[in-house]
């Protein structure tokens, strides 16, 4: 095991910020290439005529998931040192729902809004202003909101643990579901296509 490098002390905090800049650059470039600097491209997911969000996201999840499991099994990456935020089912489910509302209302998410803003979309700047205002709001409300956020702590919890199934089986199932989704996506897009829509 010699990875994760930073978690094992291969380089320090200051160097990690340079790494952050490089990784962020690649992350932003991938999002822009996918068309995710555009709110209309993103929300098309919810009108089913362009499922790029699903395709990009699940291709990325499958790629990273399979890679991580393979590197873990090969003894290259110590998976116990890989970050896993604690599971809090109720606040996380409510949070997901509210974030989904914000996605179709605002057209971006926190990461894609940065790409939208960088490529000149003024609506992305308005979204970021809302995000900053909302963050100030949740901060000020923390004395009582924080209690709900911290409720129902299940700690570090993975799908294989919850489903009582081997990790390999869960990985295989996710890959199969993703591939089935990719195969069916074009049919859904044709079914919901808007004939006069401009790009």
């Amino acid at each position: 095991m010699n990875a994760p490098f930073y978690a094992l002390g291969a380089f320090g905090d200051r160097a990690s910020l340079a790494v952050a800049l490089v990784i962020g650059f690649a992350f932003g470039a991938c999002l822009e290439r996918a068309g995710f600097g555009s709110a209309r491209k993103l929300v098309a997911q919810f009108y089913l005529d362009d499922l790029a969000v699903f395709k990009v996201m699940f291709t990325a999840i499958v790629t990273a998931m399979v890679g991580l499991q393979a590197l873990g099994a090969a003894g290259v990456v110590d998976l116990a040192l890989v970050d896993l935020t604690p599971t809090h089912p109720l606040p996380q489910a409510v949070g997901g729902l509210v974030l989904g509302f914000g996605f179709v209302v605002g057209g971006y998410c926190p990461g894609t809004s940065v790409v939208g803003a960088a490529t000149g979309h003024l609506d992305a700047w308005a979204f970021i202003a809302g995000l900053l205002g909302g963050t100030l709001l949740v901060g000020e409300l923390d004395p009582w909101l924080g209690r709900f956020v911290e409720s129902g702590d299940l700690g570090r919890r993975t799908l294989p643990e919850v489903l009582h199934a081997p990790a390999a089986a869960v990985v295989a199932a996710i890959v199969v579901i993703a591939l089935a989704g990719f195969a069916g996506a074009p049919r859904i897009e044709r079914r919901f296509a808007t004939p006069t829509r401009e790009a």
Partner: protein
Amino acid sequence: MSVRLDVTAAPAPLPSAAHVVRRPGGWANPHAAGVGLGLVLLATYVVMGRGLGASGAYASIVAWAVHALAPAHAQANAYFRDYLGRGFGHPLAAWLVFEVLGVALGGLVSGLLAGRVRRTVDRGPRAGVAGRLAFAFAGGVLMAVGARLGRGCTSGQALSGGATLNAGSWAFMLMVFAGGYLLAAPMRRQWR
């Protein structure tokens, strides 16, 4: 009267042009972009031991700003105090702040190379500019609340947590899609 051909005039659009469903705008194949994004995420886990993120950067920025204006107030608040402590020596010297700075640069360079950097308001054909900007702001506020309750956003939870088989992240991700589809119909005038 002779018919003169004006070669400088723009060619008439093809009759079918109005019915082209989608003009991709030179965007990458979604699966190619997805593999690229997945490899970036994998590299992040291998090099750092952590995933990608975005909403945490906003929390660091807001905590820093509140602390600059009202230091005692920020220190008395557990949420702001947490983010003030995440930077290395300075609240803004935090990993996610630098990562998001990289996202902006990467998005800008990619957009410039593709000729896609343009000052526009991205909106549906029936949406007005002021309305769109108001909805974008409101969506940002909702996102901040959702990201706080969900312990992260689409990057940190759905994408990064999804790839590590984090149970809470998968619950969160499914609810993000549910929320989007639930409000898609009432928001239709903004987008279609």
